[in-house]
């Protein structure tokens, strides 16, 4: 079996693992249900073995014992584990993810608020990563072994090796503090915070809907640094994968065929080779996008970015398990959703995968 077909097969298999064998819808739904059930069960169990008392988040350290006991009972924590889980699952099936102790809001409401923040950041970061990463990877591949290759490689590997929290702080120090190019932590200047009513929750879009260009540019100036820093990591990954896929494609016979036809090198690389590179690359981009969508906790902490990662982490450290479980469902859904999307794109890009 040739390398190329083997890789494609692997990629497809990967996509299929999530979406279930191309078969009955029922089967897909069933396997999704199992995955979600597993996710919830594992999260639930983690929550219950955490040596953190969930009641503390609700009543604080200094509540008298009787208040503590009553709240504990209200939270259902005195029931046997299986019963707690059963109650939780049956609520979830009815679309009720419960209330967060920390925010006093329904978990669904919280997620509607924090997920768009992460979505916006992840999407912009992935966009930058793709726009810069693919050309960089191609550029490296066609100059294999020469200095541009080394430069791209080292820059890429550096991206893999950089502690992100450190890079984030340095970024703030240089671009915000010293150079004054971008705005600081947060999604908007603090003063603007309640000028905007969330419609989509995506600040860049909401500000445009309001038609307030000052606010829009303010949002841009806030998102650009964290997005660029996250983009660096996805850029590193995408460039590196592009390079290696590209090298592999460039050694394929059809490239030779194209050369024999007298086609320009430009077209060979960008049309022929890249057309094939995109097939496995879609999975790579999807994976990196999914990772970002899960919320980059450290970046969110440093940039005071109220996203999903921060929300789950915070809830976890307070044993606010409804919030953690809800967040985990979102993460799982995102993971599965992005994989399905990449499966669809895969089929669009690779005629061999179409039926």
């Amino acid at each position: 079996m040739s390398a190329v077909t083997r890789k494609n097969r692997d990629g497809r298999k990967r996509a299929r693992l999530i979406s279930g064998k191309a078969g009955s819808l029922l089967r897909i739904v069933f396997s999704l249900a199992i995955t979600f059930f597993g996710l919830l069960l594992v999260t639930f169990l983690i929550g219950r073995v955490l040596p953190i008392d969930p009641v503390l988040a609700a009543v604080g350290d200094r509540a008298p014992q009787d208040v503590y006991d009553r709240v504990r009972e209200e939270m259902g924590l005195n029931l046997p584990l299986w019963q707690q889980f059963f109650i939780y699952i049956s609520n979830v099936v009815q679309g009720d993810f419960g209330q967060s102790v920390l925010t006093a809001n329904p978990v669904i409401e919280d997620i509607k608020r924090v997920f768009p923040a992460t979505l916006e950041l992840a999407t912009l970061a992935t966009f930058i990563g793709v726009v810069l990463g693919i050309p960089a990877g191609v550029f490296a591949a066609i100059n294999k072994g020469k200095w541009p290759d080394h430069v791209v490689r080292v820059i890429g590997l550096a991206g893999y090796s950089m502690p992100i929290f450190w890079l984030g702080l340095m970024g703030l120090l240089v671009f915000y503090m010293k150079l004054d190019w971008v705005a600081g932590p947060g999604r908007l200047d603090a003063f603007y915070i309640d000028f905007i009513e969330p419609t989509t929750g995506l600040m860049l879009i909401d500000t445009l809907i309001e038609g307030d260009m000052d606010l829009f540019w303010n949002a841009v100036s806030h998102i650009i640094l964290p997005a660029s820093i996250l983009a660096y990591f996805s850029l590193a990954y995408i460039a590196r994968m592009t390079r290696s896929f590209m090298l592999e494609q460039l050694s394929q016979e059809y490239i030779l065929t194209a050369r024999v036809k007298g086609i320009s090198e430009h077209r060979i690389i960008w049309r022929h080779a890249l057309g094939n590179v995109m097939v496995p690359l879609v999975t790579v981009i999807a994976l990196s996008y999914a990772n970002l969508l899960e919320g980059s906790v450290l970046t969110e902490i440093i940039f005071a970015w109220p996203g999903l990662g921060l929300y789950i982490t915070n809830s976890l450290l307070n044993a606010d398990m409804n919030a953690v479980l809800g967040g985990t469902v979102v993460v799982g859904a995102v993971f599965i959703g992005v994989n399905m999307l990449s499966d669809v794109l895969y089929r669009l890009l690779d005629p061999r995968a179409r039926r």
Partner: protein
Amino acid sequence: MSNDPLLNVKNLKVTFNTPKGEVNAVRGVSFSLGRERLGIVGESGSGKSQTGRAILGLTAANGRITADELKFHDVDLANLTPKQWRKVRGARISMIMQDPKYSLNPVMTIGDQIIEAYREHHKVNAREARHRAIDMLEAVKIRDPERVFNSYPHEVSGGMGQRVMIAMMLIPEPELIIADEPTSALDVTVQLQVMAILDDLVRDRGMALIFISHDLHLVSSFCDRVLVMYQGHVVEELAASALHEAKHPYTKGLLNCLPKMDGDQSDLPILEREASWAEG
């Protein structure tokens, strides 16, 4: 056999740098080619394919080509810029590759790939190009050219794929076609059909052909002249009609390798090799 020399090759050498050291794939091959059909025969590793690729300047990056002379008409193939090469490749010299499974771009439709080959060298509009491509698919005896035109390579059989390959390589009407094992990836039953199609087209359009193969008999039945290569050298050159006159023991060995249906040999002969043959 026409005598005006289309291609002149003198002392062609192809050397590769590998972790094991230098490997000499082609070690001084010389021949000249008119508007004829030349066969190059040898085992794998004999340098026959590298000879073909060297003519198109498509030796891999770690390889080096040297030659006393490497001329196509009056074009010095040894010293072409990438831009000049693109005027030669496809338009004047083309090559048919071994396995359509790998040599066709899997994510482009067959039609697009053929049109691309044509339009690279002919300034025509899209409709005209499409028209030509369909004609060409018909010319390689594809029954439903419209469907094949819109198909992807994986959707057609190996034999069909190779016909597509032929159509694609012949459509810009090159003067010289190099066919590198064009049928060895195909089922035996379709091998001859494909060869016949290629042969007809080459004949009709007055193209020259270099047919590279390991199969001496096949080569001899489609070619005028045969070069036998062994370890980068041409060990013997003979007219296709005079195979039986082969003198070199290697050539004889190749001939005997094929079991004859009417033969009375009880054992298959083993191909003999001697180090001295490689000295050239």
